[in-house]
């Protein structure tokens, strides 16, 4: 038990004589949602738009070339097969580049492909060939029909593409939002929360966002290295003082970087303003970015309102206090309750050595009763503490190669007084393979099995401990001749606080086997219960995984 303490994640040092030193202050900031990447500044920002047309051409040039290439490919294919393919199928083949271009790159390349296809069909295939002139009226109608269908198709395909893109984007947003709201739920302090929100805004806006406190002396969120220039801070204070609803873009003179400062939902955050670093650029460009950022910010603010940030902040404070309280309680209980018990148990052991007591059967049995009851109490306190620690922090085993014989031996010794009234029969194989486990945890688990066997079987009966080796696991079993198990017991055994109704007379918390199964599971093993039914005794086994150990190096290292 003692052994498992640190492993369960608690630090004893914190509880030196009740002087609790919180390590929560040192707790690292909660997991970042997405790290802010300053390199994104230029790249993913909305491009500076000198003229719409230039942008439009720049954005579509490559896809248009690609769609023309597709038409070219179709033409070559058709020229090769022109002798076998009927004329009325030609238009159909030219639909392919249209559909491809429209689904891949949108409406413009789709239309380009449509017209290029029509032109190519006319020039290369409709008689007279290699001329744009068309002889037959029917062919003219065909071609016009093709063009119509192609235009409609590329429009439809492009819409489909837009819809798919939008749903992907929404999915990403929802995933981010989900991660963010989960992050909020785990926040322990409002400081954690501020960081979470900052991260969220930075990710969503794609610019570094810093929340500024409404009180100027509180440097709050940006205290650690993400400093905001003093001038920006002052501007934010001014904005907050004036309670101006608008955003202000301020150029920081020293670095010549632009910042957007805006009051953001003080009613939910308690933090007055947000400063967003927009970076360098012409005033026109900054203006455009600022507009975009404001739009995203408005949306993000609504999201924050929906996520009940205020409640989350309060919850964070409660979580924090609860955690401190639980740690203090566990540490305090451990020290304050177990130290007096250690005195009682130690004193009993001294009394038992005194000649006056040793030779007086009555006194001796009283001393033993005190000892046993105190030991029982100590065990129960340790069980409760172990359960509390498992619930709070989980189990973190420290694996080490161990001889199962030693595990059994240690557990039998620990429980020797509990087992004193029973006949313990030990049948272990001599060459049980080593197991790679946390021996202290497995010992405790096995001790619980022994404790249970002693508790639920009549005094004087046999408790048999045996081992069995399978190719990939070792099984250590404890068989008693006690009340046995019903099918229901078997199923619910190892559940937290489960106690069979039939054993109401025997004291216990129902934690023992739950702790045992948790410890064993943490070591990659499992518990198994067997019983012929009520009244026929029970066998509870602990299985641990093995690995082969008979390597030649091993034999070299041992022999000699």
């Amino acid at each position: 038990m003692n052994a498992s303490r640190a492993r369960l994640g608690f630090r004893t040092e914190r509880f030196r004589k009740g002087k609790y030193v919180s390590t929560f202050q040192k707790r690292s900031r909660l997991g970042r949602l997405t790290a802010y990447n300053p390199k994104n500044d230029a790249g993913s920002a909305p491009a500076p738009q000198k003229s719409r047309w230039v942008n439009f051409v720049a954005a579509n040039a490559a896809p248009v070339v690609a769609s023309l290439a597709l038409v070219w490919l179709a033409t070559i294919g058709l020229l090769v097969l022109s002798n076998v393919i009927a004329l009325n199928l030609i238009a159909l083949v030219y639909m392919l580049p249209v559909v491809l271009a429209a689904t891949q790159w949108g409406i413009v390349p789709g239309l380009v492909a449509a017209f290029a296809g029509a032109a190519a069909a006319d020039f290369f295939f409709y008689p007279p060939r290699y001329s744009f002139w068309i002889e037959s009226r029917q062919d003219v109608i065909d071609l016009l029909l093709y063009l119509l269908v192609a235009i409609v198709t590329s429009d439809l395909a492009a819409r489909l593409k837009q819809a798919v893109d939008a749903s992907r984007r929404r999915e990403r947003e929802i995933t981010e939002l989900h991660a963010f709201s989960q992050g909020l739920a785990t926040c322990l302090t409002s400081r954690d929360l501020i960081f979470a929100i900052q991260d969220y805004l930075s990710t969503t806006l794609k610019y570094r966002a810093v929340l500024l406190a409404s009180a100027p002396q509180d440097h709050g969120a940006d205290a650690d290295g993400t400093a905001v220039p003093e001038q920006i801070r002052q501007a934010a204070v001014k904005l907050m003082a004036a309670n101006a609803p608008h955003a202000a873009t301020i150029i920081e003179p020293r670095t010549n970087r632009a910042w957007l400062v805006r009051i953001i939902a003080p009613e939910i955050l308690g933090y007055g303003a947000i400063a967003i670093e927009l970076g360098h650029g012409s005033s026109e460009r900054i203006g455009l970015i600022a507009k975009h950022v404001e739009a995203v910010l408005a949306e993000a603010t609504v999201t924050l309102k929906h996520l009940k940030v205020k409640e989350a902040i309060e919850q964070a404070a409660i979580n924090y206090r609860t955690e401190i309280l639980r740690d203090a309680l566990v540490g305090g209980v451990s020290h304050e309750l177990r130290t007096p018990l250690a005195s009682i148990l130690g004193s009993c052991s001294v009394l038992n050595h005194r000649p006056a007591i040793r030779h007086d059967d009555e006194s001796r049995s009283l001393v033993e009763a005190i000892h046993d009851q105190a030991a029982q109490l100590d065990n129960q306190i340790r069980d409760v503490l172990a359960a509390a620690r498992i619930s709070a922090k989980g189990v973190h085993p420290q694996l080490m190669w161990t001889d199962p014989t030693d595990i059994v031996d240690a557990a039998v010794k620990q429980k020797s007084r509990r087992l004193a009234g029973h006949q313990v029969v030990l049948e272990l194989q001599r060459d049980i393979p080593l197991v790679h486990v946390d021996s202290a945890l497995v010992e405790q688990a096995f001790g619980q099995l022994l404790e249970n066997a002693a508790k639920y079987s009549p005094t004087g009966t046999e408790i048999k401990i045996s081992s069995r080796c399978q190719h990939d696991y070792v099984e250590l079993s404890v068989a008693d001749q006690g009340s046995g198990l019903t099918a229901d017991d078997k199923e619910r055994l190892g559940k937290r606080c489960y106690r069979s109704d039939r054993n109401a007379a025997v004291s216990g918390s129902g934690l023992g086997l739950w702790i045992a199964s948790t410890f064993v599971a943490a070591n990659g093993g499992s518990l198994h219960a067997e019983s012929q039914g009520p009244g026929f005794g029970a066998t509870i086994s602990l299985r641990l995984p093995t690995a082969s150990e008979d390597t030649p190096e091993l034999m070299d290292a041992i022999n000699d």
Partner: protein
Amino acid sequence: MTKVLVIDDETQIRRFLRAGFELHGYTVLEAENAMAGLRAATIDRPDLIILDLNLPDLDGASVLERIRSWSNLPIIVLSIEADEQEKVRLLKLGADDYVVKPFGISELLARGEAALRRQLRSADRDPVVRAGPLSVDLVSRVVTLDGNRVQLTRKEYTLLHALATHAGLVMTHQQLIREIWGGRAGNIQYLRILVRKLRQKVEIDPTRPLLILSESGVGYRLDLGSAGSLRGQNEITSDTVCS
């Protein structure tokens, strides 16, 4: 008379330790904090120190280090909660052994006596270590069990020798691995197998070891007390409650 210094801030613990040690013929000195303990260790020259780790004024490990800086006195450490790594660290810092609360007086006495005996042995140069039916002559390297000579391989003997020189006290896995394999790669897996082989030669029933006992996650000790007798089932011992 052997003088034992108890450094523990819990009055009740000191009281029962005084009673227990006095019953077995020791003179007991008490200190209720680290500073008083360090003073007493220097001025009163005890033969054995029982040191609680949880002291109000100074970390027990620091007290241990300070005493070790000038003295080789036997020190047994007490703690209410200690994981294996902490135990190994204390042993490395120079504690002769540790006892985890709650414990019975006989366990602490056994540890204390083992530590004292080790001190005496290095002074007297008594070459033979006896543990129940087993005797190990550290000079002639002869090992006998109930008077019959036992043949051990070199590594088995090195292991037993290391344990015998610290008879009754725990030796960490790392200490043993270093003794046996030296600079060459040895590991805990090899050690476990070697211990098993040694047990097969010296234990009556290797599945119920009485001589070479494992200390979970820490190391091994050659037990002097219970060896040769059945486990004291009706005696109040530390075994019932310590872990």
